[in-house]
């Protein structure tokens, strides 16, 4: 019916038209290889004809050749659109082009256009934008802007609305009204797809990305008042596990991308700050100076970083100046931190402990013939008070503050951004803090149309104090709660005892004083500078040279006065000691890049990069250890009688070639090839150079005509990639066996001795990871719902690590390249705009399922780790996931004589002692019964971010978690040590004491010689480590201000960091891991770290 009408209408109109101008006007044209658009323009120029058409439907950039003499416009159009589905109607001087399937009503309305509008389109920086679609809304009438951004269009009436659209810019609609000239400024479009993202050595439109990457702009993270940017990233990316395992103030969190693991080479991703690969972490940067962060996950995205890319790459971009109005922001916040009581060690109070000690001595007398009497302080437990909670003694409520001033400005010639930040974070453990001042200035000068110079400078100064043995190990916190709770850290007269020697326990310092009085401040100064010049040689061809420098100095003064000199087992006073440590480094990097970017024939987008890079890093360190102080008055090392110095110096260098080709056809088919060749001084002379290639492709299916009918699908892209990357994190001289000092004595005089300190291996080469990835990006309902999926598979081969070899060789290990791990997994991201009205609500959700397996380990497939009964918890063996917990299987206690007589036993067993499982069923319990008792690798990790806004209020909620991983709580080895040397868990009260009093069957008897087995790594210490943590909740309010010349906006907010934790794990922190995520030993092991604190902050952002 509809089509009928169309034909009728068009037929009528054509009959009118044929009578007039079109029949009489003749043209002569000779145009070779011109676009359709230019042919039509020429006709317009040579006549009074004007065309209207929808550029989206009529391919105006198609190349044609026209050579005619004295032809009518219909003849020309017929030949121009022969064999296509383009039709036209002529109404007097107005010609409408349309596609066959266009609705008749649209064609009719197009014919009614009468008014001519001219104008220009520019972007926010004032640059003209060519190729903008200008369409009269509701019609097929439209045009595109020329190279100068100019356009001309005829519209039907003053009521028409013009719509301007361009990829990467926000579409704008303007009502024509009385105007005949309309100039438009199109703003950047920040929807994920059109965004330009930072990739290795350049930028790319997000819709064209074919590798696996995630990115975040820090303005999405603005209000989280943390001192280290990594804390803001938790829960934000699929496939990225970020653990706050140390909790140190301004400590670096451990980041692991796609479960990557090396053994010796480390698992830390490469951090690249404004194009400069850096060895130091992110802690010297203030979160406020960062513009965006990209995380590159698959080999195709990272291969341009070649030998350093195996663990993934984090690209950090700092804030740059922008052309336009000057923008000044001031941020201030203040926070209060405390440690939640969840997960505090469940140890006995003084009375309970006295009771336990009393029974311990009584049982020794009764069953072992001990003649030691119950010490008097334990003889009457009922008279003992609750005592000291040693854990709480070391903690405090801490305060933190952060101030930031940012300035961005720019003109045609100069663009600049300046950021000044001061952060002062105290920690909840007494006398621990980190203070940081960081400044940055990024500047760009446009010397001419062709030449641009840039200079970026940054500096930071950090002063921090964290006592040794606090970060990730158990020396101080873990030792403190093992103290007899009857002890007081402070005497009633206000003085402090310096040491404790309780009966049957080890000597200990007063841990409160240890924390308070040891001095250990570390100062770090760092400066970086990047200078570059960019020369536009011809259109699209650019040469860029950049020089980067990074210098830093670390110094640490240590002073341990005699009254706090000591450790567990060694009570003060001990000789005082001090030290002075300095470390200097400098790194330079020079890069030469040639890029060529051009669109051919309107449909072939080509982007080529060629580069050469050279980097060198040098460091030097020295330590002066001081001892034999005359007194405790002066701590500086110079005051000591004995001073022993030592030092070290090392360097590495790398030279690289790199190349990339990106090709895109019609925005539909995308191909990317990358290649890097690295040479590095770290490797044996036989294997110094290596090549790292990658290939990836994408198909934007939603651009295909057959997809147009699925209107709900706004974007659909399929991606696939393959690539090879490497790992060179093995220290500077691993291929060379060095000779170390081993002096001896000859009749009282010291004589020099030297020995080989390892076995060299000149064939040592790169650890390589080959990986492939397939992915899908899907946007629904105008991208209101956006979904991403990736499957990856990685093979890490030629692992660089120390293979355990028999001691009978004289060495415990040899550095080798023999080893293979596999990693694979699924990653999902779902971003939805749930509500878009006055009340806005959006959700980002990601979930990742990462798996891994060891495939080859050394020549003999020797497992790594798990050989010792204590403090050797993880074993990585062929066919198993990495870092599995390895030990005995706990099976309760031999409760009765009958149980003891009839069941398999350990050599030390007796009735009432611990029973481990006879795993191999040989009737005896021994080391052959050790087995895999837990898996620290999670089944999946996830993160959810919700953002809300309503009027001037906004809120955000960040949740992150992990499911299915086990945690081994290493504190049990001490808190369930039932030899009476440490305070113990409350459950020890219900241990087996005799056949009449057998307890609850969990804890064995205290008889000497039988208790050690209970302290061997066993399944009792392994817990489900799944958790869900509310990382951040922010509530904000923007004060509505009347327009004034001083303040643009003021925003107030309150946030809570690490607010809530849901987990079955009974320990302090479910994100704990002694080694973080690097390395395989201690993976998933809790050794009592710095507690992670809950932080409440109030803050203010002011823009001028």
């Amino acid at each position, binding site marked *: 019916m509809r089509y009928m009408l169309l034909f009728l209408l068009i037929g009528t109109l054509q009959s009118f038209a044929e009578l007039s101008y079109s029949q009489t006007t003749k043209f002569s044209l000779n145009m070779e290889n011109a676009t359709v658009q230019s042919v039509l323009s020429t006709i317009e120029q040579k006549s009074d004809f004007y065309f209207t058409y929808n550029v989206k439907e009529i391919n105006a950039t198609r190349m044609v050749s026209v050579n005619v003499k004295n032809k009518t416009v219909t003849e020309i159009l017929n030949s121009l659109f022969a064999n296509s589905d383009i039709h036209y109607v002529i109404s007097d001087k107005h010609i409408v082009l349309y596609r066959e399937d266009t609705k008749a009503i649209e064609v009719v309305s197009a014919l009614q256009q009468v008014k001519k509008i001219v104008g220009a389109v520019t972007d926010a920086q004032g640059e003209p934008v060519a190729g903008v679609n200008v369409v009269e809304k509701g019609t097929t009438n439209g045009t595109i802007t020329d190279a100068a951004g100019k356009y001309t269009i005829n519209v039907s009436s003053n009521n028409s609305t013009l719509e301007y659209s361009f990829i990467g810019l926000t579409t704008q609609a303007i009502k024509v009204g009385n105007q005949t000239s309309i100039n438009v400024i199109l703003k950047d479009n920040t929807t994920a797809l059109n965004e330009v993202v930072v990739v290795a050595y350049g930028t790319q439109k997000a819709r064209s990305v074919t590798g696996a990457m995630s990115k975040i702009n820090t303005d999405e993270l603005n209000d989280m008042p943390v001192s280290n940017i990594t804390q803001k990233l938790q829960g934000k990316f699929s496939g990225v596990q970020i653990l706050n395992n140390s909790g140190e103030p301004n400590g670096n969190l451990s980041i692991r991308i796609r479960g990557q693991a090396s053994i010796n080479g480390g698992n830390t991703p490469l951090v690249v700050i404004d194009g400069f690969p850096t060895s130091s972490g992110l802690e010297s940067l203030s979160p406020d100076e960062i513009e965006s962060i990209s995380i590159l996950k698959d080999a195709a995205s990272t291969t341009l970083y070649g030998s350093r890319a195996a663990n993934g790459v984090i690209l950090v971009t700092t804030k740059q100046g922008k052309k336009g109005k000057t923008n000044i922001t001031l941020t201030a916040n203040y926070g209060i931190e405390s440690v939640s009581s969840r997960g505090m060690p469940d140890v006995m109070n003084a009375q309970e402990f006295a009771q336990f000690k009393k029974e311990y001595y009584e049982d*020794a007398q009764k*069953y*072992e013939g*001990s003649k*030691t009497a119950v010490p008097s302080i334990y003889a009457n437990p009922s008279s003992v008070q609750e005592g000291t909670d040693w854990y709480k003694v070391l903690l405090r409520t801490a305060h933190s503050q952060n101030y930031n001033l940012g300035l961005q400005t720019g003109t045609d010639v100069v663009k600049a951004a300046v950021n000044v930040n001061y952060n002062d974070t105290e920690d909840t453990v007494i006398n621990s803090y980190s203070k940081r001042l960081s400044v940055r200035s990024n500047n760009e000068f446009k010397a001419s149309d062709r030449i641009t110079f840039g200079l970026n400078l940054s500096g930071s100064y950090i002063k921090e104090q964290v006592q040794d043995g606090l970060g990730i190990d158990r020396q101080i916190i873990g030792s403190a709660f093992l103290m007899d709770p009857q002890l007081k850290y402070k005497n009633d007269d206000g003085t402090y005892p310096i040491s404790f020697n309780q*009966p049957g326990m*080890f*000597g200990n310092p007063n841990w409160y004083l240890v924390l308070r009085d040891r001095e250990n401040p570390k100062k770090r100064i760092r400066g970086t500078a990047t200078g570059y010049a960019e020369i536009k040689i011809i259109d699209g061809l650019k040469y860029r*040279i950049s020089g980067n420098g990074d210098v830093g100095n670390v110094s640490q003064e240590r002073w341990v006065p005699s009254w706090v000199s000591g450790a567990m*087992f060694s009570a003060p006073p*001990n000789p005082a000691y001090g030290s002075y440590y300095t470390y200097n480094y400098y790194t330079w990097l020079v890069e*030469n890049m040639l890029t060529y970017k051009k669109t051919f024939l309107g449909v072939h987008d080509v982007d080529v990069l060629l580069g*050469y890079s*050279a980097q060198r890093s040098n460091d030097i360190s020295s330590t002066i250890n001081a*001892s034999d102080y005359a007194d405790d008055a002066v701590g500086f090392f110079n005051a000591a009688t004995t001073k022993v110095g030592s030092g070290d*110096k090392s360097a*590495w*260098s790398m*030279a690289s070639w790199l190349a990339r080709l990106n090709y895109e056809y019609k925005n539909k088919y995308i191909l990317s090839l990358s290649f890097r060749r690295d*040479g590095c*001084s770290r490797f044996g002379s036989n294997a*110094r150079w290596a090549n790292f290639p990658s290939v990836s492709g994408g198909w934007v299916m939603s651009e295909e005509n057959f997809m147009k009918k699925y209107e709900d699908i706004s974007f659909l892209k399929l991606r696939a990639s393959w690539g090879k990357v490497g790992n060179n994190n093995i220290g500077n001289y691993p291929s*060379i*066996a060095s*000779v170390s000092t081993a*002096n*001896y*004595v*000859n*009749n009282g005089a010291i004589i020099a*001795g*030297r*020995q*080989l300190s390892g*076995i060299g*291996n000149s064939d040592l080469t790169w650890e390589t990871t080959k990986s492939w990835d397939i992915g899908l990006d899907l946007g629904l309902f105008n991208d209101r719902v956006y979904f991403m999926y990736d499957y990856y598979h990685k093979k890490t081969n030629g692992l660089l690590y120390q*293979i*355990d070899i*028999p*001691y*009978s*060789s*004289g060495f*415990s290990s*040899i550095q080798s390249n023999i080893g293979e791990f596999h990693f694979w997994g699924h990653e999902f991201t779902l971003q939805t705009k749930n509500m878009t009205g006055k009340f806005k609500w959006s959700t980002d959700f990601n979930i990742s399922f990462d798996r891994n397996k060891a495939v080859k380990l050394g*020549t*003999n497939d*020797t497992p790594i780790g798990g*050989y*010792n*009964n204590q403090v050797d918890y993880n074993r990585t063996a062929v066919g198993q996931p990495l870092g599995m917990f390895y030990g005995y299987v706990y099976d309760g206690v031999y409760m009765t004589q009958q149980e003891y007589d009839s069941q398999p036993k350990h*050599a030390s067993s007796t009735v009432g002692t611990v029973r481990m499982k006879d795993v191999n069923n040989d009737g005896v319990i*021994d080391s052959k019964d050790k087995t895999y008792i837990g898996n620290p690798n999670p089944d999946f990790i996830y993160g959810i971010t919700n953002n809300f806004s309503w009027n001037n209020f906004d809120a955000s909620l960040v949740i992150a978690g992990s499911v299915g991983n086990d945690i081994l709580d290493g504190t049990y080895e001490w808190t369930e040590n039932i*030899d*009476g*040397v440490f305070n113990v868990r409350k459950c020890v009260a219900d241990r087996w004491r005799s056949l009449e009093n057998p307890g609850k069957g969990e804890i064995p008897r205290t008889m*000497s*010689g039988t208790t*050690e087995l209970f*302290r061997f790594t066993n399944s009792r210490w392994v817990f489900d480590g799944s958790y869900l943590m509310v990382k951040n909740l922010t509530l904000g309010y923007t004060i509505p201000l009347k327009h004034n010349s001083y303040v643009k906006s003021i925003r107030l907010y309150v946030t809570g960091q690490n607010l809530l934790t849901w987990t079955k794990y009974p320990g302090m922190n479910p994100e704990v891991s002694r080694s973080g995520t690097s390395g395989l030993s201690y993976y998933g092991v809790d050794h009592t770290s710095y507690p992670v604190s809950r932080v409440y902050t109030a803050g203010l952002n002011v823009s001028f």
Partner: protein
Amino acid sequence: MLGGLVLSSCSGSFLELYPQTSVTSGSFYKTADQFEQAVNASYTGLRSIVSDGMFMDEQRSDNAFYTIYYGDRGPYSAYEKPALFIDDEVSANAGCIRDRWTVDYSNIAKLNTILDRADASEMSDADKASYKAEALFLRAFYYFDLVKCFGGVPLTLHEVTSAEGVFLERSSLEQCYTQILDDVNNAISLGLPIPAKFPDENGGHATMGAAKMLRAYVNMTKPSPDYSTAESDLKAITQMNYGLLSDYASCFDPKNKNMKETIFEVQYTEDGSSNQYSTFAWRLAPKCSNLVDMMGIGGSNYASTSGGWVVPTKRMVDSYEEGDLRLPASIIVVEGHSEGDNFYYEKLVDAKNYTCPTGKDYRYMVKKYYHPPYTYSLRSNENFPIYRYAGTLLLLSECLVQEGKASEALPYINQVRARAGLKQLSSCSLAVVSNEMKHELAFENQRWSDLKRTGLVKSVMTEYGNYIKEQYPWVKSTNNDGCFKIDDFRMIYAIPTRELEINNKLTQNPGY
């Protein structure tokens, strides 16, 4: 253009970087000076053998036990179990037993490198011979140490440069002894110095006397002993410049290092910063809460192996003959009082016929290595004897008795007795020589090997075990009365289980 500049500067040596602060294997092992340093480093393993031997060779014997400290039930069981004869694969994979295996082999590796590389070096032939002789002696010494502890072991005889070939099977006991004798024979034929002046200015280094002493021990210990070679070696030593010092106690005084009685001695010094100190004076002292009063400087020796070990038993004290001057020189009583498990020093008292006053407590202590006051906590200056001339005389006596020439032994054994202030013997047997050795070489890490070599080990240790169980009731309850079962398999220790797990060609010693 700029790019070109950078490119040219990056060619050639840009990627050739070597350690700037340490010598590498490629540049070392060239000159005589470097070989001297390499040999010096190969002696450092002796120090570990001294400390491990205290637990494995002395405390396992009938000379000494340890003071149980109830706070110390942790990993230190690896040091206690050998004394109770309940050491197993767990204790063999920790502490002294594992350390001994490791240290012997790591020093053998140093010597293998020296022996493999000496011939191709720049040294003169004389230097080559001299350093090879020293290295061969030490390799024989370390392998003998391994064989005494573990039986037949893998023989690694060349520098290891790759993972290929490090997974070795055990060689038989006979093969090991053949290798040890080859090495020591070669060392002797290459030539070693005979010190002429004392204190020996090269004290601590291998000498002809030490090599002959080692060869004598090896020949008398191997499965088919060769007493005649041992006899001639030992007699040769008596023809060197050695002799007994007049005072037994002065042999161990740090003022008398490397005197004429010293044949081979592990060297230490204490100057505050060089970390060449010994620790045994502190290890042998009782765990004590007021060490400063006893040692001259404070510190805590409660934890770990830092105090309360190799404690002489009353039975040991009582076993000295009346008037034996070696008793007051070797053992003393530390008298004090106890609060719970903690002990407080008050004074030192003679061990002879000691009875403890009521309200007081006491510990026997080895006195040989106690020379206070000390300057540094947990450090001492004393050397430790390996071969003493008195030991040569007694080993020669034993050798002659074994050869059925007991009467020829009398002049040698009587020299030793005379110095101890004891009457001369007119007859001599294996048991008599052994008893003399027990007291002369007490607390010098010889007793366990001596008992095994003379075949007296089972009877002596069974009897001693019964005494200990009676003396310390807690021993009886430990391990369900499994202590002090002196089975044949316990003559050697278990191989550390790490080795077995990593090298599946190895087999565990039977019984463990």
